[in-house]
């Protein structure tokens, strides 16, 4: 069997791009709020549905879909944080309590979406031109995804490294007590990161939905590899997450080839992400953060 390695590499970049956009918010809020927010999966789903509604049902196109999904999903995440997680944390809820609460919040959002839009998979109506460059085939949607990922990654890098707010986010996630003692309103920083993180998750949801299908499990389908990115990259480590996203993307795409050659179902590729989480936690719990200490 001939293997098109160039295509596999490109597919890995595409997979990694969705995971990266989906993981940024989860990683930073995980570190700042000190719990893993499983409702992040539903922020991805919500973004996919809002994108589908604006782009395909209202017919307004993709750009308004990105903007509206970003803002609405960001607002929903703020309401979740202010209305549920923050009050719980103030009442002394542990990491486990918050995590379970996030699973509950995720269920509520997921089934609300199901009640509103139904459980039958929906498809974006956009059509995408396919380009062929040598052995590589790439659609317009994938080119857009790569462009959005590059822009988001560079913007986030610039914001975190150069702006006062970005440094305050890094400072607050590293040492919240000292950040407060430096005059930083840590609570405001947390709210901003929840908003931006969920907004980016919505963008990831639109790309995932537009390239596959939109249904109430859209986010849940990819939350495991996104958690793998967060763990492998080092929780809260933005630069680690970039590298981890592409490692997971590559692993998954090479895994598909290997599984096919072994005559196994390609659904097992999800197990690879799980395997990476387990190996990372056993061998190097800090993940790739050891290479990116200025995070």
């Amino acid at each position: 069997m001939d293997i098109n390695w160039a295509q596999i590499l490109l597919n890995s970049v595409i997979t990694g791009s969705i995971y990266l956009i989906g993981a940024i918010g989860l990683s930073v809020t995980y570190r700042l709020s000190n719990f893993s927010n499983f409702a992040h999966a539903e922020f991805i789903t919500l973004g996919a549905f809002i994108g589908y509604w604006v782009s395909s049902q209202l017919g307004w196109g993709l750009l308004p879909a990105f903007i509206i999904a970003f803002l609405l999903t960001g607002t929903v995440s703020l309401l979740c944080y202010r209305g549920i997680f923050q009050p719980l944390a103030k009442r002394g809820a542990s990491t486990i309590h918050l995590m379970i609460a996030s699973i509950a919040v995720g269920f509520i959002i997921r089934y609300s979406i199901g009640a509103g839009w139904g459980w039958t998979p929906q498809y974006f109506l956009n059509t995408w031109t396919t380009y062929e460059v040598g052995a590589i085939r790439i659609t317009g949607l994938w080119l857009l995804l790569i462009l959005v990922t590059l822009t988001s990654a560079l913007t986030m890098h610039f914001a975190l490294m150069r702006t006062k707010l970005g440094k305050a986010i890094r400072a607050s996630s590293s040492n919240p007590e000292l950040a407060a003692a430096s005059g930083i309103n840590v609570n405001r920083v947390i709210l901003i990161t929840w908003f931006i993180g969920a907004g980016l998750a919505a963008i990831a949801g639109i790309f995932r939905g537009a390239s596959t299908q939109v249904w109430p499990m859209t986010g849940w389908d990819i939350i495991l590899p996104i958690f793998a990115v967060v763990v492998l990259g080092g929780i809260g480590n933005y630069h680690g997450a970039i590298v981890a996203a592409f490692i997971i993307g590559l692993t998954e795409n090479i895994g598909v080839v290997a599984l096919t050659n072994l005559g196994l179902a390609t659904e097992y590729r999800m197990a690879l992400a799980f395997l990476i989480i387990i190996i990372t936690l056993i061998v190097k719990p800090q993940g790739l953060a050891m290479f990116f200490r200025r995070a």
Partner: protein
Amino acid sequence: MSPILSAKNIDAGYNDVIVIRDISIEINTREIVAILGPNGSGKSTLIKSILGFAKLFDGKVIYHGKDITGITSDRAVHMGIGYVPQINNVFSNLTIAENLDMGAYPCKDKKSIKSRMTETYDIFPELAARKKALAGNLSGGERQMLAIARAMMAQPKVLLLDEPLASVSPKPGSAILSKLNSIKDKGTAILIVEQNVQKVLSISNRGYVLVNGACVMSGSADSLFDEESSRQRFLGLEEKVLDNN
């Protein structure tokens, strides 16, 4: 002259446990005040309660004549109260320059931040040479200097220091004390919690001695140093150390 900062009849602690009871202290401008006492006496709890890091059960905190009881730590910095914790007192994932930048967070004027940074590097030339070094890679003494420098970037009127000499070897420890003296001379009042009684009293104007969460003695640094009973009961000084002075 009214004190710049005073804590009156403070009861404070953590969760439901009261660690310090009925403690009153005051600090005046251009003054270094030491809080002394053995381990577990509640020294750190006292300064943490001023900033909202420990639970204040009773009492009042007055700053510049205004009641600021229960203020959050970030608001306290904006008002002019700086704080240097004993541990985890730098952002280890940020460079020296970024740490100082975060210290000046309440200031919005870029020019002012730049001039503050120049002033800070004048006081701490050791840091100027390594602006781009990660704080996590610094030695104990360098970290402590960075921690104080970070707090000074907000140009506080009062600086609260929690054991700045802990885990610092003697030479950088002496350098830190001399920097604190120059900070005081420039007009910042300093409240310093410290185990190293002999060293801290050498730069302090006054002091308070806490034992088991209560203030058992207060007075000028000289009187505390000379007080035989305090030396034996509370300060834990070795006779031979005193003899050498």
